[in-house]
């Protein structure tokens, strides 16, 4: 385990050094990434100037949901860059996965270490800024439990979305091409988590509560942090299911990953 961790940091270190070689490019990339994501929030902010709220949630409360989801997606996108299915499918297509399988380090560690896209920091910073801003906008009433639970929720979102990246990459072992429909769950997932569950139609709400439990990662914890009551009158425990949900998703994704590797047939190129 420790050896794998050491190997992971070595691999990531190599990739980081190569990215920092072109410094100006890096900064331009970083700022453009920040601009892209900031514009989404700017749009929300401007619309709320006219309407005041979305489904009874004001700017501060929406900023909390949005900031949390953006920060964790940015973190995930950086840490799990190797499992970005657009990238991973090129490993499969070009037969580079063969090399990975031949080395005496667990494949998942190698793929994770293959790529660590530093410019995603732009998205993380932007998300974190909105999240911190939201604490002031809603005048958050902090309790020790909230302070302790916030990093847990953040980590849960990172792990859960990372699990989707792993599952999406595993699919490309069979399809060879990238599977664009996975975007619905990943990029769609962030968008979904950025708004209160109560605005969505019942069918969508059911799917993303019981089948793909995204709302346990964002909406329910947000109710707890913001001291809001659920319009559906929920018991007290759902906000705290986030780590269990994330752990379960990761476990399933890794099972699928092992299964996929067992059935991997090289493209031979």
């Amino acid at each position: 385990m420790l050896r794998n961790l050491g190997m992971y940091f070595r691999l990531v270190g190599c990739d980081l050094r190569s990215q920092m070689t072109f410094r100006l490019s890096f900064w331009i990339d970083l700022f453009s990434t920040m601009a892209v994501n900031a514009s989404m929030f700017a749009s929300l902010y401007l619309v709320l100037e006219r309407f005041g709220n979305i489904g009874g949630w004001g700017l501060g409360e929406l900023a909390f949901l949005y900031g949390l989801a953006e920060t964790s997606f940015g973190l995930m996108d950086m840490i799990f860059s190797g499992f970005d299915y657009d990238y991973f499918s090129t490993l499969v297509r070009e037969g580079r996965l063969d090399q990975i399988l031949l080395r005496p380090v667990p494949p998942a560690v190698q793929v994770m270490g293959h790529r660590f896209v530093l410019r995603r920091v732009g998205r993380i910073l932007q998300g974190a800024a909105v999240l911190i801003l939201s604490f002031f906008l809603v005048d958050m009433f902090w309790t020790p439990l909230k302070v302790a639970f916030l990093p847990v929720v953040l980590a849960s979102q990172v792990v859960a979305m990372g699990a989707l990246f792993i599952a999406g990459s595993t699919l490309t072992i069979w399809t060879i091409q990238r599977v664009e429909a996975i975007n619905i769950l990943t990029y769609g997932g962030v968008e979904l988590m950025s708004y209160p569950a109560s605005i969505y139609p019942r069918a969508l709400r059911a799917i993303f509560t019981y089948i793909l439990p995204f709302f346990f990662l964002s909406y329910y914890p947000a109710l707890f942090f913001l001291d809001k009551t659920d319009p559906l009158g929920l018991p007290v425990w759902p906000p705290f299911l986030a780590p269990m949900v994330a752990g379960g998703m990761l476990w399933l994704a890794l099972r699928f990953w092992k299964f996929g590797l067992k059935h991997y047939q090289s493209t031979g190129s």
Partner: protein
Amino acid sequence: METMRLYLRVMKLSILQQVTYRTALLAGLATNFFFGLLRAAVLLALFQVQPVVNGMTQAEGLTFVAFSQALIAFLFIFGTYDVMNTVYTGSIGADLARPMDLFFYWMARDFGASLVNLVIRGVVLVAVFSVFYPVVMPATIGQWGVGLVSLLLGWGVNYAFRFLVNLTAFWTPDARGIGRAAYTMLMMFSGFLMPMRLYPDWFSRLVALTPFPSTFNTPMEIFMGLLKGPEVIPALITQVGWLVALWLLARVVLRRGLSKLVIQGG
């Protein structure tokens, strides 16, 4: 006449190429539809606060959502990086050797792909969306006609802007980063994220001074009849004005860029 035929051939080849990627078309359609559902939920929640905003009703807001998703591929909302790649790889040399103008050559290629995306991704998406939510369609044939003309003009303005963004590759190795930022502006100021009428008035008045609303917001407003009668004429003139201005600018920038372009052999 002869060159016109060449451009049509380029367009036809591009159509055939686009039709080959059928699974990608379907997957794209599914993704656009899902995002359409999410955006619709947000729009519905907004209109619950205020039923009519700047003359725009809930049904018109939902139509906006449907078309923004339907036209993502038609308008290359996430941007294109093809021309800048040919600058970096040097294959622009081969393109320049063709008896065609570079601006119109890529225009024909893009338009071919756009036509396929309009029919397959656009029409199908609006049809499926209309099963779940109301979609406002033009009331008269005339409105259909003007709407389509405005949509084509919008496509042109959008294309000219993307072409210009790609030309930055002549001056910097980081044109991709510049492109990402530029296409974000396009996304936000074109009305793709939110109809312009829902933003605060000071903001939409400011954005109206840029070419961006001409690409998507204006065609949509004409199509749904939010702009009608005499209001349509200045809207169309603005679109034509931006198209010509950006095209002329692209010519100047291209000539400057080419004068400093060095292509290495091998």
